[in-house]
């Protein structure tokens, strides 16, 4: 195979600098195109389902506290080891695990989403909130109360009922229902769960990107 690095051109093209004219016409055309800039603080980006943002622990409406059962799977799977859980067992209630402390170091987190994917009861979630920068470190070491508070704040600004909220980590796309633990078999639309699931490149084809 012969690779032609320099396209051949006629002597007339060389004299008249056709490439320069082509370049100028391109920039002139782009002058009248719509800019892609988003004026950020005024114009927020549209966040899609599956965005991995601020950490939160889901508040269980029945018990008023976290759904976490202390199985330690999230702490084990976490690649950056940013989740710390301390538990004790209470023989009185049939060896149920009671969580003493649940902490996430947001500064070490790599936002991979493994913790919410592995959680059998959908207790942990990476919410769609992304504006939580801070000038000091301690406020980014989330304790259990802070994590529950994060969920309350996220649930308050969520459109639609809170108990219908589902993300692609709680109910992984493309997996058959029977392979999932019971709390993860959440009701989702057919195109999410079944054969016609729309993921990856197909997603872009189905839903026109609103903001490039």
């Amino acid at each position, binding site marked *: 195979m012969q690779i032609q690095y320099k396209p051949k051109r006629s002597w007339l093209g060389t004299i008249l600098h056709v490439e*320069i004219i082509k*370049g*100028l016409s*391109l*920039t*002139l055309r*782009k*002058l*009248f*195109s*719509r*800019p*892609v*800039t988003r*004026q950020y603080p005024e114009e927020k980006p549209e966040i899609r389902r599956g965005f991995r943002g601020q950490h939160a622990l889901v508040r269980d409406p029945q018990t008023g506290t976290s759904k976490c059962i202390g199985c330690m799977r999230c702490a084990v799977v976490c690649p950056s080891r940013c989740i710390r859980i301390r538990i004790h067992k209470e023989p009185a209630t049939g060896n149920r695990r009671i969580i003493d402390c649940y902490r996430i170091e947001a500064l070490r987190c790599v936002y991979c989403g493994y913790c919410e994917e592995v959680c059998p009861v959908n207790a942990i979630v990476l919410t769609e909130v992304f504006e939580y920068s801070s000038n000091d470190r301690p406020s980014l070491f989330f304790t259990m109360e802070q994590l529950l508070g994060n969920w309350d704040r996220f649930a308050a600004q969520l459109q639609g009922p809170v108990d219908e909220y589902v993300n692609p980590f709680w109910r992984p796309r493309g997996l058959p229902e029977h392979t999932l633990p019971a709390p993860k078999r959440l009701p989702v639309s057919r195109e999410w769960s079944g054969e016609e699931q729309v993921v990856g490149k197909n997603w872009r084809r189905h839903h026109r990107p609103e903001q490039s």
Partner: protein
Amino acid sequence: MTVLTMLLHIVVLVVVVLLHVAYATYFERKIIGRMQVRMGPMRVGWHGLLQPIADGVKSFFKEDIIPERADQTLFRIAPVICLVAMMSSLAVLPFAEGWVLADIDIGLLFIFGMSALAAYGVVLAGWSSNSKYSFFGGMRSMAQVISYEIAMGLSLVGVMLMAGSLNLSEIVRAQGDSLFGMYLLPQCVGFFVFFIAMLAETNRVPFDLPEAETELVSGYSTEYSGMRYAMFFMAEYIGMLMMASIGTICFLGGWHGPFAVPFFPPFWFVLKVYLFMFAFIWIRATLPRYRYDQLMGLGWKLLIPLALANIVVTAGVKALIG
């Protein structure tokens, strides 16, 4: 009385030109932004309209740092030389019939002299900063300006021959009202040479080697800050405006237009100058930088012979017809 009116005219001219310079930066940033599918300045005022004023205020109040090992005197006067040389050549530009501060008969020569003087400012800035980047920038600027000054001077000799005068107002009058009176058509080779030499003379892309920010930080103005840096910047933009004006006067028929605009005679002049400015910016948004040896090769091997041939042909044709 005449002195007073003259002073008033000078003040008005300087203020108007400085405002133009300020808004030329806005114009440039906006247009380059749009060409790169961005928006350009948007924050200060409506669509960033107050951005040039904010920039001006900022550069006035910034700390003026002078390097310890720099040549103090030269370092201080270099930007002033640049700015003064550029501003004084504004005096001979005819903006409309009779709208000229100094209607001197060597107008074009005066402008050449002044723009060559401005090169001193750049070279001295590069030398006195005592920094390798500034020094390289100054050296490059010197070589570039000298070689392109020749090409530019020669390209305008054709115009001088046709108009029979060096007085800028006379050159405009010689071109007359009509479209075919413009020297753009008979002097198209001269215009080509002039246009390229104009880009090189004002140190604009694709010939911005003296301040090539990718290799030389900022070239000759690396060590400058605050007001002195702003002076270099102003000098560059006034230089652009001036070169655009010379192009308008010598090739596009100056203040003449299809019809006379009431109350504002320089309308067509300003429009044509802005056309040139747009071309400057358009080229900046499109082309990459020339390599140094290519730049010199283009100047000496192509532009100067072309300009010389243009002079011979123009003089021959004029001798045959006239």
